[in-house]
C-alpha cells in the first residue's frame, strides 16, 4: 500500500540507540506491498532489531531472490546495499558476498516459493556451508507475486484461493534446516513483534547459519476459498469475473501470547491457525529433542514457534575454509600476487 506519501518530519523525541540513531535511520523506501501484508511486519521487525542492536545500517548487506517477500529489503535499512537477485538463488549470491567480506552482517530475505521450490537445493547447501548469515523466509504458503499458486510449504489439504485443495505434502522448513545442520533455527509469526524482534536480534548475533521461518500471511491470495465466513461481495465478484482484480485493503494480522501458551490466529478469510509458543524452560540445544518436538506438534496440527534449536558454539564457513581474518576483498597486490621471481621458479618447474 503505497500511494500515501511517507511523512517526512522527524520526531525529535524518538529514542536513540548507542549509535545515536533513531528507528527512522533504519527505514527504507515506502513499501509497495498490499495493505496488511505480513511481509511488511517482518520488515519493521528487522528495522527494530537492527536499531536495538545498534548496528550501523550500512554494515548490513541485504540479499534476496524474487517474490513479494524478496522485494522487502528495499523497504528497510535504506543505507545498506541490497541485491535483489534471481528467483531461488539468494543463497549462492549471499555465499559469494559473505566469502568476499566476512566483516558485514548478511541478511537474506526469501519467500517460501523462492526457498522451498526453485531454491531448495541452494537452501540446503548454504546450510551445509554454515554461512554466517540470517536467512528469513517470509512464509505464506503461496506465490504472492505471481498471484496465488500453492507453494511447497502449503499444508496438505489447504484450500487456496484458486483451484482444488492442495494435494501435496508440505515441506517443513525448520525441520529441514535442523536436519541439514543449521545452528540457529527459529519459527515465528510476522504479527507477533514481541517474539519476532528478539529472535531476529539473536539470529543476527549468532555466528553461523541462522534461519527464521516467519509465517507471514498473504492477505490477498492465501487460504481464501477455505473460508466459512459469510457472504462477501468482493469474493463473489472475483470468482465470477474469473480474475483477481479486486484486492480489498486489509489490516495487518497481529497476535500476542506468552511463552508456553498457544494462540489461535484468525486469518482474513476466517481460517484459523494454531500457534504454539515454546515454553520458557525449553532447552533448544538438543537437536534430537528439537526434531522430535517438531514432529509431535506437526502431527497435532500445531505450529511450534520460538527458538527451536541453537548451537551456541557453531562455526562458520570462514572457520571451515580457514580464510584470512582480513576480508578477502581488502587484500591487495602485495598479499595476493606471488610476484615475478616466484613466476620464474614456476616456469622452471614446467621446463
Amino acid at each position, binding site marked *: 500500500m503505497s500511494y500515501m506519501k511517507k511523512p517526512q518530519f522527524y520526531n525529535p523525541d524518538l529514542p536513540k540507540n548507542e549509535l545515536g540513531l533513531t528507528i527512522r535511520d533504519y527505514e527504507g523506501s515506502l513499501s509497495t506491498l498490499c495493505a496488511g501484508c505480513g511481509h511488511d511486519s517482518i520488515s519493521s521487525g528487522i528495522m527494530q532489531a537492527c536499531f536495538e542492536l545498534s548496528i550501523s545500517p550500512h554494515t548490513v548487506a541485504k540479499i534476496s531472490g524474487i517474490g513479494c517477500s524478496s522485494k522487502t529489503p528495499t523497504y528497510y535499512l535504506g543505507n545498506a546495499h541490497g541485491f535483489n537477485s534471481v528467483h531461488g538463488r539468494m543463497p549462492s549470491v549471499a555465499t559469494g558476498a559473505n566469502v568476499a567480506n566476512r566483516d558485514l552482517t548478511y541478511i537474506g530475505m526469501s519467500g517460501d516459493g523462492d526457498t522451498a521450490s526453485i531454491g531448495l537445493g541452494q537452501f540446503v547447501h548454504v546450510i551445509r556451508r554454515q554461512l554466517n548469515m540470517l536467512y528469513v523466509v517470509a512464509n505464506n504458503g503461496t506465490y504472492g507475486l505471481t498471484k496465488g499458486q500453492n507453494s511447497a510449504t502449503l499444508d496438505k489439504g489447504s484450500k487456496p484461493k484458486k483451484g482444488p485443495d492442495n494435494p501435496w505434502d508440505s515441506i517443513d522448513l525448520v525441520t529441514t534446516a535442523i536436519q541439514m545442520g543449521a545452528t540457529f533455527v527459529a519459527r515465528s509469526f510476522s504479527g507477533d513483534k514481541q517474539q519476532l524482534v528478539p529472535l531476529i536480534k539473536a539470529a543476527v548475533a549468532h555466528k553461523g547459519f541462522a534461519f527464521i521461518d516467519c509465517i507471514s500471511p498473504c492477505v490477498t491470495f492465501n487460504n481464501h476459498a477455505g473460508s466459512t465466513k459469510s457472504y462477501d461481495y468482493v469474493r463473489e465478484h472475483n470468482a465470477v469475473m474469473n480474475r483477481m482484480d479486486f484486492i480489498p485493503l486489509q489490516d495487518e494480522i497481529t497476535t500476542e501470547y506468552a511463552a508456553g501458551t498457544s494462540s489461535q490466529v484468525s486469518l482474513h478469510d476466517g481460517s484459523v491457525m494454531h500457534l504454539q509458543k515454546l515454553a520458557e524452560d525449553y532447552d533448544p540445544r538438543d537437536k534430537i529433542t528439537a526434531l522430535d518436538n517438531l514432529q509431535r506438534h506437526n502431527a497435532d496440527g500445531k505450529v511450534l514457534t520460538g527458538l527451536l534449536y541453537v548451537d551456541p558454539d557453531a562455526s562458520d564457513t570462514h572457520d571451515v575454509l580457514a580464510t584470512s581474518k582480513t576480508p578477502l576483498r581488502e587484500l591487495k597486490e602485495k598479499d595476493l600476487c606471488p610476484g615475478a621471481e616466484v613466476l620464474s621458479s*614456476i616456469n622452471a618447474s614446467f621446463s
Partner: protein
Amino acid sequence: MNTITAVNEFVIRFANVNGTGSASANMLFAKSLFRMGIPVSPRNMFPSNIQGLPTWYDVRVSEKGYMGRRGENVDMVVAMNPQSFERDVKSLAPGGFLFYDSTKYIDTGKYRSDIQWIGVPLMEICQREYQNPRQRQLFKNIIYVGALAALLEMDFDVIKDLIASQFKAKQKLIPPNIHALELGYDYASKNFDCPLSIKVKAADLNKDKILIDGNTASAIGAVYSGATVASWYPITPSTSLVEAFEKFAERFRIDKETGEKKFAIIQAEDELSAMGMVIGASWNGARAFTATSGPGVSLMTEFLGLAYFAEIPVVLFDVQRGGPSTGMPTRTQQSDILSCAYASHGDSKQVLLFPSDPKDAFDIAADAFDYANRLQTPVIVMLDLELGMNDWISDELEWDDKREYDQGKVLNAEQLDKLERYGRYLDVDGDGITYRTYPGTHPEKGAFFTRGTSRDEYAVYSELGEDYVHNVDRLTRKFATAAELLPKPVIYKAKASAVCGVVYVGTTALVQDEMTDLLEQDGIYVDAMKIRAFPFHSDVKKFINKHQKVFVIDINRDAQLRTLLINEEDFDPAKLLSIRHYDGMPVTAVTIVEQMKSALGISDNSNAEKRA
C-alpha cells in the same frame, strides 16, 4: 617395402587402456623430447570413463615447429591395447613402425605387411622382474619408454634426469623406474638395429620455453591477478583449471605464520550456484571466478543475464568440449561461441576472450579480472579442451611486479563525500561505464539496490519505457567502449601481398604456420588474423574490409564465429567463406588448406594427400 625415414619430424601414437598408468609414462616420453630441445606437441585422446577403455596419446615431433595435429595417420604406433589393436594398426602410414608386446605370439602377417613390426616381450620382462601385479602393469609402461629411447636414439640421460626430478619427493621410486627404463633400453638395443630410420636428434629449439597446459596457465594467471574467490562444479575439461588454482593458491597464498588462507575455493552444488557465488563475491568487491564447460554455461545462462543487466563483474572460464548437450565430453570444439556471446534471454551480450596458447591463457586470465571490473560485466574466457588439457610448448609466463589490479570505477567514502548526489547508473564519463560502490563503504551515501529489473540512473526501480531505453542504450555504449579496451587482434601478414585473409580464434592458432607454409607451397598467400576478443576491435573490421575474401575458421558445425562477425559488423556474408571442422579432434592444417583451396576452386594436387 618403403620405410619411413625421418629425423625430428614424425608422429608417434601411444594406444593404451585407460587407468593403466600410461599417461605418466607417455608424458615422460614427450617431456624428454622437449628437454632435448625438440619441438613436440603431445595430445591426449581419452574416453569419458575411468578405467578399461581405449585411450590414445599422439606425440608430434616437429623441428619445423608445426605443433598442430597432423592428421589421422601416424608414423609409429605403440600398440598396447588389444581392444583397439586392429584400428591402431590401420592408423599407421605405410612404412611406419608398429611397436607391440610380443609376449604372446601375434601373426603380424595377418594384419599388414607394409609396415615394420617391432615386438618387445614387455609382459614377459615384467613377469620376470616384478612380483607385485600392480608393479608389473605400471613398469610395463616405463619399459616401453626405455625401448623407445633406444629405438629413436633419445638422450638417455635426459630421461633419467627427468625421472629424478619427477620423483624428487619420493626418492626411493627413482631407482626402480630407472631400472625399468634400462630394461627396455637394453632389450631394444640388443634385439633391433637402433636407431630406426625414424629418430630424434637433440636440438636447441626450446630455449625459454615451458611445457604446460592451458588450464594450469590460466589458473596461474588467476592467482597472479589476485583472484580470491573460486567457486565451481566439477566438469571435464574444466576441472583441472580449478584444481591447479587450488594447488598454486595453497602454495603461495597461505600465510606462513597464521595458516590463514588468502583465498576461498568452494565446490558448489551445481553450476547455477557456482555462478551465483561469483556474482555475490564480485558485487562485494572480491576478484572471483568460476570455470565450467558447455552444460555448465547453459545452466549459468539466467545468472549471466543478471550479471549483464545488473552490471556485475564476472570471470568465467569456459573450457569448451564437443556439444550439443553432454555431447563428446572428452573431445574438443569451439562450439559455445554463440551461446556465450548471447548468453541469456532478452538483449544480453557478453564479453568473450579467446586465448590461443598457454602463455596467452595466462595473460588473458590475468587481464580478464581487470576487464570484468573495468567493464562491470561478465567476461568469458573461451578455452577449449585442446588448449586446456594438453601440454603445449609455450613462452615462459611473465609478470610485471609494478602491475596494479584494476578494480575499475569504484567510489570510496571520501569520493562519495565529495559528491552532490551519487547515481549508480549515471554515465558521468560518457563511456557507458558508471560508478559503483561496495557494500559497507559509507554510512549515509552510496548505498543502492542492485537488481535484475529495469531502473533509473539512481538505481530506483522503474517501469518507465524511457528509463529502460536510456539504460540499455548505455549498455550498448559500454560495449563500444569494451571493443576498444579489449585486446586487439593479432595480424600475420603473408610473405607476399594477399587478397585473401583468414580469421580464427583460440587454438586454431596452432596450425597457422603449417597452414601458411602449405598454402605458400602452392603459391597462395593469405594474411591471417587471430581475433582475441568480442566485441570486436575496429582492427577486425579493417582487416576484413581490406581483403576481398576472408576465410573464417570455425571449430563447430554452425560457423558460429562467422555468424558473430556478420551479426556484429554487418559484413557481407558472401565475402566470408566458411571453413568448418567439428568431429571433436583438433583441426589439422591439411583440413583447412583443403577446404580453402576447394573454396578458391584450386584442385587439390598439393602435398595434402601425402600428409593426411
